[in-house]
């Protein structure tokens, strides 16, 4: 090692104390020799500033949202989140219908998407022939990249008419007595929003689940198979049990996406700020009320109410995403990357 260092003697030899944890003696020595110049310090400081800008963005958003929603925070306090009046004309605002719409449509989306996404992930990691896996993985990636407004466009002109014509009448006939699937069949409503959301979060959940499942070591699978388990038992005991925390993380990440999804939901949810029992009735979500009414909000209080909804959305998605990341990292950290 020392010999190598001698051979690669750097020209700039003015030394400064090591600025970085060394990874090998050679590298440490060379770094000490090289990082003396002013340019180096300036460069690393510049990089640091850019990295810190990410914190700055989060703080900036938070400060802007809080200062923008000061009016309603002062006027309504916590009752803003429990009131269900939305009356811009008389200046009376409550966010409950939007919170309800966001939560219910997201949960609906997860109920539809999660079993399918896990099924797809199982198929792709454990059963799929190689030639098909590449295509399907590429395709899933592609679908995750399709803009929300395009999904919305498709939903308006294809999905909603199909659901209204073939699925909802059947649903009303068989389950109408529960009250959950009752009422007039508009097509646009909570259930349609849930379906389009589930289509949108499916690629995200399934690709993350796949990643987590791939991180489970092969030895686990082989061990379970060697005990005489069938393939399903191997998947259940060897793979799913080991990956369950990460799968929960993937689902929560999907939830985060669904909560904040704006355009597609706005286009199909029906935009009516009411809490109704029937899932087929029009509803409203937090993101869509902002999208629809923000640029029309004439007075300060109205604007402030909309910004406060944005603030709530921001805080909730930050928490949900942080939780999801921690769970996903807990599984995939340090795991060997398996080729797909």
């Amino acid at each position, binding site marked *: 090692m020392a010999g190598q260092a001698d051979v690669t003697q*750097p*020209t*700039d030899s003015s030394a400064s104390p090591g600025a970085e*944890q060394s990874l*090998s003696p*050679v*590298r440490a020595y*060379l*770094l000490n020799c*090289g*990082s003396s110049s002013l*340019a*180096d310090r300036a460069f*690393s400081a*510049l*990089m640091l*500033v850019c*990295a810190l*800008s*990410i*914190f700055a963005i*989060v703080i*900036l*958003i938070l400060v802007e949202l809080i*200062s923008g929603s000061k009016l309603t925070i002062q006027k309504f306090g916590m009752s803003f989140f429990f009131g269900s009046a939305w009356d811009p004309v008389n200046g009376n605002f409550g966010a409950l219908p939007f919170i309800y719409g966001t939560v219910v449509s997201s949960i609906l989306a997860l109920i539809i998407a999660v*079993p399918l996404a896990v099924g*797809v992930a*199982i*198929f792709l990691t454990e059963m799929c022939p190689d030639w098909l896996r590449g295509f399907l993985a590429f*395709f899933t*990636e*592609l679908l995750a*990249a*399709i*803009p*929300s*407004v*395009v999904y919305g*466009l*498709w939903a308006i002109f*294809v999905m909603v008419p199909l659901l209204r014509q073939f699925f909802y009448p059947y649903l009303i006939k068989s389950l109408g007595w529960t009250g959950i699937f009752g009422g007039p069949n508009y097509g646009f409503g909570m259930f349609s929003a849930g379906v389009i959301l589930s*289509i949108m979060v499916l690629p995200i959940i399934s690709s993350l689940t796949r990643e987590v499942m791939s991180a489970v070591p092969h030895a686990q699978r082989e061990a379970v198979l060697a005990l005489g*388990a*069938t*393939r*399903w*038992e191997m998947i*259940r005991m060897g793979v799913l049990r080991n990956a369950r925390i990460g799968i929960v993380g993937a689902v929560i990440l999907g939830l985060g996406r669904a909560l*904040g*999804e*704006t*355009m597609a939901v706005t286009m199909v949810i029906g935009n009516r700020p009411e809490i109704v029992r029937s899932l087929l009735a029009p509803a409203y979500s937090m*993101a869509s009320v902002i999208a629809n009414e*923000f*640029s029309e909000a004439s007075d300060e209080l109205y604007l402030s109410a909309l910004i406060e909804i*944005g603030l709530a959305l921001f805080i909730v*998605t930050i928490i949900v*995403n*942080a939780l999801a*990341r921690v769970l996903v990292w807990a599984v995939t950290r340090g795991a060997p990357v398996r080729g797909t």
Partner: protein
Amino acid sequence: MASTTTAMPPPLRARASNRFLRVVVNHLATAAAVGSTILVMAPLIAIFMYLLFKGASSLNLAFFTQVPKPVGEVGGGMANSILGSGILLAIASLMGVPIGIAGGIYIAEYGRNKRLANMVRFTADVLNGVPSIVMGIAIYTLIVVPQKHFSALAGGVALGIMMIPTITRTTEEMLLMVPLNVREAALGLGVPNWRSVLSITLRTASPGVITGCMLAFARVAGETAPLLFTAFGNQFWSTSVNQPIAALPLQIFVYALSPYDEWHRLAWAGALVLIVLIVVSVALVRYVAGRGVLKGAS
């Protein structure tokens, strides 16, 4: 499978008695997995095909050369929206790409195993999941309110901020794949560290870094929500950074919700153009990543 005897743990051994049931469950599970894949893939492929078909039949030359016509008149296009999207994305890239790459360089080159770097990484991931509409509100109060009008600048900044976390994370991942020997060789020749980072490490990782930038670009190219009250949209030609500007996703949104068939046609055509833009960049990304430029170096 037949010779399952003494070495089995109790739960498995207990079940060995009803092997028939286990085999049936196994087949059912397989069928469920295959079934769900088909159930998921079929509509997704249908969406895709429908978009291609519907978009292709709506697309014509006027789409790329004309501005929107008033209601009731046939024809017109989205030329101003395409230009507007281009300007917005240029502003966004000018802002997001350098900052994002620099952040990635910090995490990978200076912050290894440091707590701060881990926090930056975590925050970037969390920021990635923040709804884009929230970004729009923040930029509205930050830029649009003081300026007192909607502007292309505000829209571009909103998109640029959304690009930063994605680019930071991919740049970091790509830089970490560059073998240490490469850095050592550069430093061994007496190259200052900053020079080594920029022209050796970053250069080696450049296909991957460009990939990351393309992904971020593709993602914000289709963003509508943050533009609703920053760029706002515009029915006419505008290249001024200080004026409201049209954007492809915004125009699709407006036209999709309109009651006119002619505008619906334009919306489908716009969707196709967006999709093609995104598919090309994702495919390019796959190609570059799959070629294993970095794998060859290690």
